[in-house]
């Protein structure tokens, strides 16, 4: 029983972490071009989405 007291918060925390991560990725525009992302992986020279992405938001 005492195990539950620790496990429930941990489970909820991990779930919430996933939710926050999803909302963050949504906001930072990672789902805006799913097709492009699939092709960009073939590109060697590509940098990160870059700080300039912020400006375009």
């Amino acid at each position, binding site marked *: *029983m005492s195990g539950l007291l620790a496990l429930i918060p941990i*489970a909820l925390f991990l779930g919430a972490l996933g939710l926050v991560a999803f*909302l963050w990725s*949504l906001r930072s525009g990672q789902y805006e071009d799913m*097709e492009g992302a699939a092709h960009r992986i073939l*590109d060697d020279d590509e940098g990160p989405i870059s700080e300039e992405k912020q*400006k*375009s938001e």
Partner: protein
Amino acid sequence: MSCCAPGVEAGAALALQNTPEADDDTLLAAARDLGDGTCQLELGVPDVHCATCIRTIEQGLGGLDMVEHARVNLSTKRVRVTFDPKKGAPSKLTATVRQSGHRVMLLDAIVEDEDAKKLSHLVRALAVSGFAAGNIMLFSVSVWAGADAATRDLFHWVSALIAIPAVGYSGQVFFRSAIGALRHGRLNMDVPIALAVLLSLIMSVFETARGAENTYFDASITLLFFLLIGRTLDHMMREKARGAVKNLAQMAPRRAVLVKGDGTREAIAIADIEPGMELAITAGQRVPVDGEVKTGVSEADVSLVTGEAAPETIKPGSELLSGTLVLTGAITLVAKQRAEQSFLARMIELMEAAEGSRAGYRRIADRAAEIYAPAVHLLALIAFLGWGFISGDWHLATIIAIAVLIITCPCALALAVPMVHIVAAGRLFEAGIVMKDGAALERMGEAGHVVFDKTGTLTQGAPSVTEQFFGDAAALSMAGKLARLSAHPFSKALGIFALGDDVFAGETHEVAGQGIEGKDEDGIWRLGKKEWCNGAEAATQAPRNAMAQSEVWLSYNGNPVAAFALADAPRPDARIAIEALVAAGYEVSLLSGDRIGAVEKLAAELGIKNVRGEMTPADKVAHIQALQAEGENVLMVGDGINDAPALRAANVSMAPASAADVGRSAADFIFTRNSLTAVPATLELARKADKGVRENFALALVYNIVAVPLAMAGFVTPLIAALAMSTSSVLVTVNALKLRFGNPWLTKRRPTSRASSSRAEISHPEPAQ
């Protein structure tokens, strides 16, 4: 066309300097000021399709000094550029993209519209409800598995802690819609949804406080989760359709060039044009307002305006309607009307007046909700009163009444329609058909009479070369080289017919109304009218195909060396499509603004019996309304400005991607591929979808017939509720997925379709950028 190689249009682009994409003022007006001295511009790049395309465009733009950031979006086929307008002209951006071998188009200014915001809110609501549903289900399963008293209460409290904020956030979509409907004294599907979700939540909190055995937190939140999936997908579908429509080339002119009294020129907005103003219009531009030609001789393509296929010669004194495309020489035009009184604006007025048949249409889901919602509420009330009076236990009666509401919550019913529409839209999208709205699919399913326009709908809307009836292959290649320097539709057709992409190397100039003339070391080449090329005598020896409408000649130092026949050919598969429609039991008619002779010839060729020619836009509307008065549901397929009112008057409408802007916005469906089989394909899918929706309703009804007596008898536990609701939702979704299969029009793979569609884009009457 090989991957990313510059296409034929690269040559044609030489002839067109004055497109909106090359005009700095237009580009700047479309850009968004970011406030820190930089601007952001979104351009359409319709041909990008691979990693190499992305790289060439991004590196090309990134190499410019003025560009701060450029990113291609492959899903929407657009590139977003952030640039500093002080460091260079924006036309450099479009020129750079074009040089890398891609077509580029100007899109409307970026407007963050309401719907885009709503979609992102829906996705967030979906994420929150998904998280909550997962966690609450975790606790519920533990309770069902037999957690004992203290643990059960703890689990219920934790569930409540998650469910209350989650429902408060994710449920807003439904609560708002329900309140809106109630305020207007109506019931929609969202009313029973909102009631079930809220009541189950409130009851569960009370039960938790009492330490009772059963709570319905999981039902409340999974219900929301399922419904939000449907709603989000529905929005995504519409967003995708809107994006696809926006990506089609804009045709209406955005600005006009005013010629002032002292001969200087100035770009002005279309809305600022006053009657009497003198406007300069170059080859390849559309006439912005109705007016009269003052100087210059040229040819004009009126196919989108009146439906007439053959280009007209225009000279000083000719009257032009707005939307007419000037083909060869530059002209000056004296405006006779303001923009809002021009032909285009009059068509929009006619369109609004013709709206009748649609405003009266009520969506099938709304019709179902109007029967369903009161029935459900009545059943819950009966359960409440019945149990209350019989047992005298009003607490129990409340719980049972709420259980009835939960179990009858139209989860399956609310998914029944959108799921089918989403699957159908996805299927059509793959076939190059854009569906703007689910209601259109319902109306399409009811259509019984198909009315076609001729020019640009049954035909390609642009001439193509049917044969070379005089001269040899060397002459053909020379004709192609000359033709690629001109924007005239005949030249474009010839440029494609001759294959290759090299252009004439010497000096050339266009002779308005005659053709194009090129000079090299040996002599003078002329490509144009028969008389201009002295072809009369040669023509008597070389008979041409009777089907052809026009011809183009090539002469060398005054001697004819080649001749080509051109015709506005029917779209590929036009005949197959019409035959399929007739075989499927549809009535087929042809209404055209073109001469009756030309119309009847095409009708005979395609096997259409009901034919009308020389119809004005108002005639078309009247004809459709007469059909509707006889009880027919009419599908109108058309492309021109003159078709727009008819497209709106019909019960449902389709337009090709090459249609005029106003026609595209009036149409419910837009087919982007060249083949006319899009029409029977869509009709067949719409009928299937209609059947799918009805089956889904039947499934939901069967589910209710089983579940409602159980709920009213008081046998429903949270476990049964969860199982029943999930099963019915999944069943409805699976049934909708059936639409992914079958329909030979959409599954048939045509190896040539790719090549023919890219050809069609080039031979399109619009100026290729």
